[in-house]
Every structure is written in structure tokens, then in C-alpha cells.
């Protein structure tokens, strides 16, 4: 069948242009990160990565991410279920509200948490009186990370669940299946790829968040420094290789994320083809 743009000349030009632009715009920065990280050889790179403070920063970043994902997962699924399976007043509003984290600059996101839970905030004052510290400790970092990442799972699920409709679940209800069983047996298999994709996006953002975390972290080395903050500090200290060594770890996580996503999409596509 004849299609637009199938002439070999057009095809070759367009592919070449796309690949060239992508290489220049996307691949080159990636290469630059690793080139800078290994600029002084493997030994220097390794001594930077195995530095006590870097290891602590990696630990904290993973710890925060591991705690963030389940929270976002539960919220995302609940919200998607709510807005796609039921009609109620304020449904549109609720859907727009979850876009707030996309509309708020991360620095401001950190600020609003600080204004609320900081020592001078109206909740923070009470907490301080009870010797509970949220800001400048890991719970504060966790809170802002949840704030900036919470829309991802919901945003992935809503369009899909809307498109699929609720006919299958309704059939299951008629057959008398209990709620959890319906969700586990009927809904979950339909949405699992989108769910995983949402988790991957959440993970990527949770690992890399800088602006919001920098406001509430306190940047205590070895204690409340996440990997992106640690990177910025090394950069401030004129340790370019160290900064890019940390950057390369983050880039590596980004690459793993991309690989996981590509694999998922490939499996999802295969499943669609052979259900």
C-alpha cells in the first residue's frame, strides 16, 4: 500500500535528520556526562563514588524512593478508580487539582511545605513543641518528594481506565464477585503495564528531584543530603569530576529507567498482539 513520505529520498532524509538531531540534542549530553566523570580515569571516578558521603547520599536517595513509590501507587490507583468508575460532583475539579504539582515550580513546592511544617509554620510550631522534626530530616524530604511525584501514576491510569470502560468489572459484580477480587482479577491485569509505567516515572522523578528537596533538606552531609544535592555541592566545591561522577550515577539510573520502560512497552505490545 502506498503511504505518504514513502519515497526513498524523503524517507532517508527524514530519518537522517531525526537521528542527527536526536544525537546532537539528546545523546551528546549523555556522552558528555560520562566523559566528564571518567576524565581523570577510573581510579578517581571510583574514589569519588565510594566516598563515605556519596554512599550515604545514594542510600538516602534509594530509601526515599522506596518509601515514595507505594504511597503514590495507592493514591494513584484510588484516584483513577474514583474518577473513571463513578460520577460525582467535583470530578473534573479533582482531576485538575492533581495537576498542581506540575504547575508549581519545585522551589515553591519546597517553600510551601517549609511554611507549613517549619518551626515558624502553624503546624510546625506545634510539632516543634512536641519535639517532632519533619523539616531538615528525612520525613520532610519524603513529603516533598511525594508532592512532586504523586500525579504520575494517576495520570497514566486515568486515560487508560477511561478508555477501557467498566463493562468487565460490572459483569464481575453481576456474577457476585467481591470488590477486591474484581480489582485483582479483572482490573489489575488490564492496567498493569500502565501501572508499571507510572511507577517508573515516579521512580525517575523521586530519584532526581532537586529544587523542592533542596529547600527542606538542610543539606547535612552524610545525613540529609540526597544524591542530586550532593552533586550540586561537589560542583560548588570545584570538584567537577566528583560532581559528574554523581551525575553519571543519576544518569545510569535514568538509563535503567529507560531500559525498563522500553522492555515494558515491548512486552505490552507483544501481549496486545498475542493475547
Amino acid at each position, binding site marked *: 500500500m*502506498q*503511504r*505518504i*513520505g514513502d*519515497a526513498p529520498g524523503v524517507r532517508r532524509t*527524514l*530519518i537522517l535528520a*531525526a*537521528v542527527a*538531531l*536526536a544525537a546532537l*540534542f*539528546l545523546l*551528546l*549530553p*549523555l556522552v558528555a*556526562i560520562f566523559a566528564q566523570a571518567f576524565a581523570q580515569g577510573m581510579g578517581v571516578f571510583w574514589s569519588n563514588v565510594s566516598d563515605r558521603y556519596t554512599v550515604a547520599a545514594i542510600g538516602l536517595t534509594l530509601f526515599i524512593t522506596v518509601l515514595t513509590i507505594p504511597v503514590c501507587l495507592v493514591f494513584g490507583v*484510588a*484516584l483513577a*478508580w*474514583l474518577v473513571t468508575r*463513578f460520577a460525582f460532583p467535583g470530578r473534573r475539579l479533582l*482531576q*485538575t*487539582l*492533581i495537576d498542581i504539582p*506540575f*504547575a*508549581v*515550580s519545585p*522551589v*515553591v*513546592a519546597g*517553600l*510551601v511545605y517549609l*511554611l*507549613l511544617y517549619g518551626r515558624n*509554620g502553624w503546624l510546625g510550631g506545634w510539632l516543634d513543641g512536641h519535639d517532632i522534626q519533619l523539616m531538615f530530616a528525612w520525613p520532610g524530604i519524603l513529603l516533598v518528594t511525594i*508532592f512532586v511525584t504523586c500525579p504520575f501514576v494517576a*495520570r497514566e491510569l486515568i486515560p*487508560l481506565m*477511561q*478508555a477501557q470502560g467498566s463493562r468487565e*468489572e*460490572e459483569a464481575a*459484580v453481576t456474577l457476585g464477585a467481591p*470488590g477486591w477480587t474484581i*480489582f485483582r482479577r479483572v482490573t489489575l491485569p488490564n492496567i498493569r503495564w500502565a501501572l508499571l509505567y507510572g511507577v517508573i516515572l515516579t521512580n525517575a522523578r523521586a530519584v*532526581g528531584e*532537586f529544587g523542592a528537596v533542596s529547600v527542606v533538606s538542610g543539606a547535612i552531609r552524610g545525613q540529609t543530603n540526597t544524591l542530586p544535592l550532593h*552533586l550540586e555541592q561537589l560542583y560548588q566545591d570545584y570538584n567537577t569530576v566528583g*560532581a*559528574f561522577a554523581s*551525575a553519571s550515577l*543519576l*544518569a545510569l539510573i*535514568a538509563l535503567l*529507567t529507560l*531500559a525498563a520502560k*522500553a522492555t515494558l512497552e515491548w512486552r505490552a505490545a507483544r501481549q496486545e498482539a498475542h493475547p
Partner: protein
Amino acid sequence: MSTRALPFAIGRTPKRVLPGFGLSLGISLTFVSLVLLLPMTGLFGQLAGLSLAEYWAIISDGRVVASYTVTIGAAAVAALVNAAFGLLLAWVLVRYEFPGKRLLDALMDLPFALPTAVAGITLATLYASNGWMGRLLEPLGLEVAYTWVGIALAMAFTSIPFVVRTVQPVLEDLPAEVDEAALTLGASDATAFRRVILPHLWPALVTGTGLAFVRSLGEFGAIIFIAGNMPYETEITALMIFVRLQEYDYAGASAIASVVLFVSLALLLAINVWQGRFIKRLHGGRG
């Protein structure tokens, strides 16, 4: 994020036969109020401390207004560049088979996966006058780092995936008959694309470009390293918020932040509504 299907559009009003309404409503409302709305009260608490005149004085200050111009201008350029670049990439990824295609496809999401601070220091290093790219561009008279171009570049980098990922699924769903019909009528490739394909892609393209634009308005981490931060010339609005924070001026920071917040939310809402209308029209008003 992908908008594989367009949200807010499809489906008749669902009946409440399914279980879990109370539970999901409870979780969602608790979460939205505690995590999203409660902290925002802090922002509005700061704003409440300002009189209208003070608020206006802060947000209409000459330097802040200049920063709106820089931010909006650069974001618009970045969004338009991304519209063209994203369309090209989506087209190539959907229509052609070639070695390395899956790699290219995976690479598209890099800007979302890469922390913005990493993107910032890397772009600044690449496009500085002694960087790999800067060394090539400077002799041509094109200065990127510390100029307006650098700001647009950083914005474009962080928002590439929006256009690609919104156009891609629509292009995939376009039946081959559309092409054929156009070509059998004897139209050239360019004409057929413009007259037949583009109208189908239009909503997705506008949505993707709009999302890219909104994202660029709020971006800070990636830009700050490559912008010269010269008053009136290369200062972005996010920097003005940052400056107010440094001065312990929470009210001022909140006031400027509120402008960005309202503009972004209004744009997001407009995109959602516009998209809904368009889909309704496509479905012959049944939606």
C-alpha cells in the same frame, strides 16, 4: 508521561454499581487535602498578608516584568522548536523501520528521566565557549551559554518528550487509507501531509506543545546554570522567586509564584477543555 488516550473525554457517565466508591473517595480526598491543598494554604496565607496594592507592586516591578518577557519568550521559542522537532521524530518513529529505531524511541524519554540539575550542568558544560558544542558554534557567531538562546535550549531539552509522546499514538492510530486516499487524488507528499495528515495531528500537536510550554515556564534547575542571569536580559521568573527567598521575603516570593501558578493552571485547564471539545467534535458531538 504519555497521553496515550486523551483524558477527560471519553465515556458516558458511569453508574455507581461498582464497589469501592467510599474507599477510593476517602483515600483520594485525604491525600489531595493533606498533600496538595494543605501546603498550598501556606502560599495563600502569605498572600493574604499583602494588600492588593502591595501585591500589584511586587508582580508589576520592572525587573520582574522583564523576567516574564524573557521566560515567556524563551518558552514560546522552545515550545515551537519542539513542535517541529517532535513532529519529525514522531513521524520517523511511527512510519519508518530502520536500525536503532527502538534505541531512538527509548532515548526520547531521557529528558524526563534525567534529573534537571544534571541536565543543567551538562548543557552549560557543552555549550560554553570551550565546550564541545560551544567551540563549534562560537566561530559562527552563535553564542548559546549565558544568552537567551541558552535559556531556550535548556527549556527545549527538558520538554522534548511532551510533543513526541502526544503525537506518536495519534499517528499510530491513523489508518493507512487516509494516506492512500490523498495520494490517489494525485497530491504531492507535502500537500497530502499538510492537507490530510496535519488536521488529524493538530489536537495532539497543540496539546503537546502546550504542555511543553507550561513545563518550560516553571523550569529552574536546568536553566539556572546556562542563563547569564543578567537583570532585564537573562533573568527568568523562577530566579526572581529564588532571589526573594534569599531576601527572606516570603510574601514577595509567594506573590510571584502565584502568578506562575495561576498562568500554568489556567493553561493546563485550557488544554484539558480544548481537548475535550475537540474530541467531542470528532465523535460527532456524542461525547
